[in-house]
């Protein structure tokens, strides 16, 4: 149930925003850009993949292909791409937002849960919302936020103090607020929600704190929780799998685990299983698909016997009821935090008989793209490794064992993109060698609970790459190396381009067929946010945040930059 006192909150919002509105009164008229379509219908959201004006979903559409259908900006003219405007937020901190654009109005978020509404053609501010953060926040990897979701005339944002907010899109006024979990126990929100058929879908962070993970659906009008799917099953033991999805032995001591299970019972209550990124929605089947992150404690398996279902898995549940449909676990009983974070993508794929079937793609921290059958979640194939793999799966020790990828390896949370005409998916990757150390400690009630340490090996080189993978075969089509490990996201467009940014401030466009670099721009701070695209008055823009990243300590900034091709 929402814990929310309407009277008190409305008063609070009035006070916080009263001054802002008077100060920017002339800018509020920009709200007329909403035109007649000041409301986002379910139909618009369903058709977002073919919408050449708006950018309505964090990952472009319900299938999460991040493919923008306009080709005004293309391989021929991308060399003329120039900044149209730069907007600077008040917060100079890690920026992971995907701008959402509705009929010429852009919504962006920053670290610490600010939202800005901007005129998407000019970059002028329309309104600014600051969440009143509670005194208790517990979060891993920076005070990030990855954006809002839109539905009818409302916006939705999850907060670092583990709440979901429903706001008026026109004014930025808070309408309702629901607590999703207790931040004292390690729950927090950084992902953007997904809205479908009046339901606001949200996961949770906290896999580093011994939470019990979930995906929840909330009523968009009231904030009431409609259903909760727990990502750690009450019977989390599974099938005692000895090999991972790629057939490699994980060196589990199953007898010792079984003895521990008999002694302590099922560990599901503090087993972690965060969900960091948006679910994909299959509208026809009325199902959603999401991936579940690592078990808690990350490196110490001795306190959590069993496969730890459904950590490190692709999971599908029914959209209306939240009931389990199917799952596929990549790494049972993971002790390396090489978990599943990047959002799944729904496309048709060739199965092993050569027939096209509805599929699901996921890019793993292992460095593989996994290709699934959408029907039963089963694995059809996995791609060649996109980053070096060595010594897998050596068990962590007290003094540390080197294994590649390091725990920030492969695809991380960064969303992939797909060009279905080419049958290619594009992933940005990290290569950051680490040693894995284990040191057991009991559940610390909401404090960082890694069960050891990941240590970067300072003398080894780190780098990143962009990799194009043919998902019908699992073969790598092309690969481009970057100076630094990559985190953020990638966008493909019908103009034959993919766009991705780097920690050193470079934002680049590549030919999606060949990987040749066609354009670059120095943004002055780490470009570690997923790019988006939209059009206003017939003019196409590419937009991206340049604010750096906490996790990899890339240079911080506060810029939202929109690019267009000059006439």
């Amino acid at each position, binding site marked *: 149930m929402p814990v929310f006192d309407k009277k008190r909150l409305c008063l609070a919002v009035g*006070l916080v925003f009263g001054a802002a509105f008077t100060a920017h009164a002339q800018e509020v008229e920009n709200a007329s850009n909403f035109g007649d379509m000041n409301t986002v219908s379910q139909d618009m959201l369903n058709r977002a993949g073919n919408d050449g004006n708006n950018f309505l979903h964090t990952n472009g559409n319900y299938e999460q292909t991040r493919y923008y259908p306009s080709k005004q900006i293309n391989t021929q003219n991308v060399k003329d791409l120039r900044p149209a405007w730069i907007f600077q937020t008040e917060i100079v901190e890690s920026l992971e937002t995907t701008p959402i654009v509705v009929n010429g109005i852009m919504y962006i978020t920053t670290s610490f849960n600010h939202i800005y509404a901007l005129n998407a053609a000019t970059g002028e501010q329309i309104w600014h919302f600051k969440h*009143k*953060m509670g*005194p208790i*926040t517990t979060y891993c990897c920076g005070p990030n936020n990855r954006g809002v979701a839109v539905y009818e005339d409302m916006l939705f944002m999850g907060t670092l103090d583990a709440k979901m907010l429903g706001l008026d899109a026109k004014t930025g006024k808070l309408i309702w607020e629901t607590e999703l979990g207790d931040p004292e126990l390690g729950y927090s929100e950084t992902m953007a929600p997904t809205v479908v058929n009046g339901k606001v879908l949200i996961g949770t962070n906290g896999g580093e704190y011994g939470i019990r993970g979930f995906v929840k659906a909330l009523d968009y009008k009231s904030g009431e929780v409609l259903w909760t799917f727990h990502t750690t099953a009450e019977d989390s033991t599974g099938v005692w799998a000895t090999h991972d999805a790629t057939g490699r032995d994980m060196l589990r001591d199953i007898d010792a685990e079984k003895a521990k299970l008999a002694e302590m019972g099922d560990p599901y209550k503090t087993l972690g299983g965060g969900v960091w990124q948006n679910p994909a929605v299959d509208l026809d089947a009325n199902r959603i698909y999401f991936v579940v992150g690592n078990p808690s404690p990350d490196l110490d398996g001795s306190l959590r016997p069993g496969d730890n279902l459904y950590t490190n898995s692709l999971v599908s549940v029914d959209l209306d009821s939240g009931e389990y449909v199917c799952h596929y676990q990549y790494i049972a009983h993971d002790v390396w935090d090489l978990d599943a974070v990047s959002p799944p993508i729904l496309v048709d794929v060739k199965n092993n008989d050569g027939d096209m079937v509805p599929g699901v793609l996921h890019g793993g921290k292992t460095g593989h793209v996994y290709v699934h059958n959408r029907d039963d979640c089963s694995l059809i194939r996995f791609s060649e490794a996109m980053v070096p793999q060595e010594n897998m799966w050596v068990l962590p020790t007290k003094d540390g064992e080197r294994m590649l990828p390091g725990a920030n390896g492969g695809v991380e949370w960064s969303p992939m993109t797909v060009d279905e005409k080419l049958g290619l998916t594009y992933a940005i990757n990290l290569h950051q060698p680490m040693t894995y150390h284990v040191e057991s400690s009991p559940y610390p009630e909401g*404090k960082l*609970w*890694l*069960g050891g340490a990941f240590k970067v090996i300072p003398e080894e080189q780190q780098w990143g790459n962009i990799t194009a993978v043919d998902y019908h075969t699992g073969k790598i089509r092309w690969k481009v190396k970057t100076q630094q490990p990559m985190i953020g996201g990638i966008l493909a467009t019908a103009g034959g381009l993919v766009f991705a940014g780097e920690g050193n401030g470079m934002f680049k466009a590549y030919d999606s067929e060949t990987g040749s670099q066609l354009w670059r721009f120095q943004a002055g701070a780490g470009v570690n946010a997923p790019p988006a695209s939209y059009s206003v008055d017939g003019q196409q823009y590419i937009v991206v945040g340049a604010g750096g990243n906490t996790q990899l300590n890339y240079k911080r900034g506060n810029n939202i930059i929109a690019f267009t091709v000059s006439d």
Partner: protein
Amino acid sequence: MISFVRLQFVGLAACIFFSTASISSDAVDIKDKLVLCESCHGGEDGMPVNADTPILAGQEYYYLYVQLKDYKAGRRANPIMSGMTAALSKDEMKALAEYYSSMEWTKIQPEIDQELADKGGSALGAGQCSQCHSKYQGDSRVPRLAGQQLPYMLQTMKDFKNKVRLNSPAKGSLMDSFSDEDLAAMANYLSGLQQP
């Protein structure tokens, strides 16, 4: 309500600070308890009676609350504070944490060994302490270290290292990788840091 109005005009750090002040636990009466705390941690001036006793005045709310919980649960072992917290309820702990965090930070004149302190700067760099502690001024669950009592800080760092203070396992492994002299150097540096 004051916190809201200020929130409008001040920057980020202040936003977090003022929001901590707006927790309402008026319902809990901590007057009697405070008399006891003050006998060691100091009265209105927030000046601890002994140098082995930490400054609480102006410390982070969430950090203080967590310490009280951890003393009570035995995750942080200390003969004095375990006794002090044994009978406290969560609401009382929150109210005590709120009381101390809303006070001004107490400035002391620690006896710093400057030569050691100079070495401390580079040890802090090697430990990547600023990754979480930033400028050592504290933020929510990360405590303020700048200007904390020197003997206390050194002792608690050793307690992390020697697994007496178990309430932050990751910090135990971290302190393990430093010699006692490094710890002393860092403590001297941090204790000597004043507000920017």
